[in-house]
């Protein structure tokens, strides 16, 4: 099958993401849902997550640049990011969110800024891998449907 090398590449990518704790068991739950509901679900979910995460990280940057930081708003945003990252199994991002909430609850601005940099780094790494995953899935789908026709 023409798509076999791409499928192998996708499997390797996902295995490495699990091995390096980018992803956890919750992502496997979503993979099972995709098997039951058809292709495209995972791509939609990760795209929604990445859009949400970008928006929240930008908002956190704005909030932490204020002369007087509203730690309540910061915490609410980090809580939201933790929720969505947990929902997709984005383990490393979720873990940094926990650290972020801890320093936020101490009203530690410097700690929050450091945590935000860490979240940005972890999200950027994950985002690149998700983009590769979605591209591979799309290429596989195209090749598989050509094969069937």
């Amino acid at each position, binding site marked *: 099958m023409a798509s076999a090398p791409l499928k192998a590449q996708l499997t390797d990518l996902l295995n490495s993401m699990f091995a390096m704790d980018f992803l956890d068991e919750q992502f496997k*739950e*979503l993979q099972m849902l995709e098997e039951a509901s058809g292709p495209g679900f995972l791509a939609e979910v990760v795209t929604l997550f990445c859009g949400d995460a970008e928006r929240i990280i930008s908002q956190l940057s704005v909030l932490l640049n204020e002369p007087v930081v509203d730690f309540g708003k910061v915490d609410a945003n980090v809580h939201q990011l933790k929720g969505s990252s947990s929902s997709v*199994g984005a383990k490393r991002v979720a873990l940094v969110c926990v650290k972020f909430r801890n320093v936020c609850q101490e009203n530690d601005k410097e700690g929050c800024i450091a945590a935000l940099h860490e979240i940005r780094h972890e999200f950027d790494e994950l985002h690149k891998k998700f983009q590769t995953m979605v591209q591979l899935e799309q290429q596989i789908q195209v090749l598989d449907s050509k094969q069937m026709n």
Partner: protein
Amino acid sequence: MASSQVVKVLIVDDDVLTRRIYRTMLFRFGFEITEAGDGKSAVNQFLTGNEYDLILMDNDMPSMDGVEATRTLRGMGIPAKIIAITADANSRGAFLDAGADEFLLKPVNFTVLTDILKAFNFLN
């Protein structure tokens, strides 16, 4: 059950991603899905005459949180099964006191949720 044979579900969560995941999970069982983005919208669904068999209820939402929405719906005499699904472990007691039938922590394990749906006789 609501008047039709199909199980009618109301998903109440302010997060679009979460609602999308639950929708996909429940749609494969042939359920009819409606979404609400906060507790007030959920209550309004019933005030406008809609009926649901099952509600998946988040807690931390704008306008009206899940505990208050649950309490309000039970006060209206709504008999639907309510499963609280939230990241807030501390809200378990409040949810059950308000009238929720089950309480799950996010992220949801779909096998556990499926078992609950079976226990509620929503699945054959």
